[in-house]
């Protein structure tokens, strides 16, 4: 493959690994926020998404997102690259000379692009799980992950990033790294699932305080690290655009974290570390679509707006009564909308994307395009997710029993507890002779062990 540029390939492959790390990072960001009796289940939702979406991505996902359009810019052909067929020695993204031949040393291997896009699909699915902490059937979640990725994520990825996809190519909205595809999409789906599953026992009365705030900080730190891969890697080359995206990803995030803290300090009297971590994520979400179209000042403004609005938005669930457990709606939907729309306000021409926002004399044109893109994803994702969720809920059921919820899904679903930090009061004994003897005892215990 003489056409490959090693620098760009190194960049994209490293960024892909960084984005892969974001899903375990999310498991900690979310897991730290649950109660100690459901942290493992929370992490398992991320790990399950990692497993399943990886597989279906190489089977039909990549093809649906990046295969040739099967009509109207809505979805790619699921069979064209089924099982990644024919891609092993392909090169993508090469520059063309006047004669239409690839210029040597300018492309990256098609598999590098497959890799980079795979981890986007994975994390988008995993993001949704925060809305249904503590009470979802694990099997139902796994089914949902596969169906949702197929019916919602792959098509929307095609709209935005696929060749001939209608959002970027046709209406020319800007979504550099996935504000619509990833964050608005996951945020809306989270809302739909929260409505379907209903409130946790004790919601609004008993405090569900985070059982391990340092884990939340760890998750936020690792997410930030990985997000440089997510945003700057979306340039698909180690170039000036990537560098601009990198710096904006730093600045907007910093601003959002400070803004969230400031909002809390003013409103509640205390700036919390959960708030700082949440602000980090809100800023990262908001700058995702915008990191190629603003300057440092614009990034600061987007960060501040996202930090303040998301800090306010996470309270809505108490007012409106939907139990979006870990605030996927307040952070990802709201943050995603902020970032997507504000491109229409603060984009500057000299930035790589080359569009001009309202505040810089660009008129309402770009803002309108952005609103259409955001709105389309909101409507499509909400409706389809609602249907998928309801079908699952009415058939296999999406929610565990009340008893299991009270005792904790870690124990009742996974037969595990997260921590055994004290050696002292542990009273247990070995049941049977290891794996061999486990089957029968396991089944009977599962019946007995659950009156909390």
């Amino acid at each position, binding site marked *: 493959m003489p056409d490959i540029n090693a620098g760009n390939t190194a960049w994209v492959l490293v960024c892909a690994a960084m984005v892969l790390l974001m899903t375990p990072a999310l498991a900690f960001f979310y897991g730290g926020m649950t109660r100690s009796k459901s942290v493992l289940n929370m992490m398992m939702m991320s790990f399950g998404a990692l497993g399943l979406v990886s597989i279906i991505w190489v089977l039909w996902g990549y093809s649906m997102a990046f295969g040739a359009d099967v009509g109207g810019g809505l979805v790619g052909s699921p069979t064209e690259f089924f099982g990644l067929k024919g891609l092993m020695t392909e090169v993508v993204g090469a520059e063309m000379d006047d004669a239409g031949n690839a210029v040597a040393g300018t492309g990256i291997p098609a598999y590098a692009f497959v890799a980079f896009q795979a981890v986007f699909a994975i994390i988008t699915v995993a993001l949704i799980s925060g809305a249904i902490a503590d009470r979802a059937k694990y099997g139902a979640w796994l089914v949902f992950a596969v169906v949702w990725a197929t019916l919602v994520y792959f098509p929307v990825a095609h709209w935005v990033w696929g060749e001939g996809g209608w959002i970027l190519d046709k209406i020319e909205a800007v979504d550099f790294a996935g504000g619509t595809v990833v964050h608005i999409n996951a945020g809306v789906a989270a809302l739909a699932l929260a409505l379907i599953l209903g409130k946790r026992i004790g919601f609004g009365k008993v405090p569900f305080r985070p059982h391990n705030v340092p884990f939340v900080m760890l998750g936020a730190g690792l997410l930030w690290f990985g997000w440089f891969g997510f945003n700057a890697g979306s340039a698909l080359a180690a170039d000036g655009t990537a560098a601009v995206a990198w710096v904006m990803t730093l600045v907007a995030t910093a601003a959002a974290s400070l803004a969230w803290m400031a909002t809390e300090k003013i409103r509640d009297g205390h700036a919390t570390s959960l708030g700082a971590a949440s602000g980090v994520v809100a800023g990262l979400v908001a700058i995702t679509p915008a990191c190629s179209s603003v300057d440092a000042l614009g990034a600061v403004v987007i960060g501040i707006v996202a930090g303040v609005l998301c800090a306010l938005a996470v309270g809505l669930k108490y007012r409106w009564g939907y139990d979006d457990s870990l605030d996927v709606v307040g952070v990802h939907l709201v943050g995603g909308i902020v970032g997507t729309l504000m491109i229409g306000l603060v984009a500057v021409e000299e930035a790589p994307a080359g569009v001009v926002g309202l505040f810089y004399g660009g008129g309402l044109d770009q803002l309108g395009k952005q609103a259409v893109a955001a709105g389309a994803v909101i409507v499509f994702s909400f409706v389809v997710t609602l249907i998928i969720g309801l079908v699952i809920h009415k058939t296999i059921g999406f929610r565990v029993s009340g008893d299991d919820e*009270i005792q904790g899904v870690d*124990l009742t679903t996974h*037969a595990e*507890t997260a921590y055994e930090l004290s050696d002292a009061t542990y*009273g*247990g004994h070995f049941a049977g002779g290891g794996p061999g003897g*486990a089957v029968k005892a*396991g089944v009977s215990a599962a019946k007995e062990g659950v*009156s*909390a």
Partner: protein
Amino acid sequence: MKLVTAVIKPFRLDDVKTALQQFGIQGLTVSEASGFGRQRGHTEVYRGAEYTVDLVPKVRVEVLVEDHEADPVVDVIIKSAQTGRIGDGKVWVVPVDAVARVRTGERGHDAI
């Protein structure tokens, strides 16, 4: 003076606390415990090896009361902690010779 001790299911604690407050109890002490009894423990599985954990998480509540309050307090606890399912716990009453409040050094009745 009596010491009423109750071992109950953790998720009933809030209700018990509220009921005792409504009864007029001004203070109590809570601690973590694990119980073994008719209620079975649970099973955990780690890498295919299955463990039976006998001990079930419980909460211990201790309340110092006047002699005549002991019986009604036991009733209040039973009522507010009861789910009717095995493992709801026990309440017992122990005689107390003396009580003092650390802050003031007050003894007896005034110390509670």
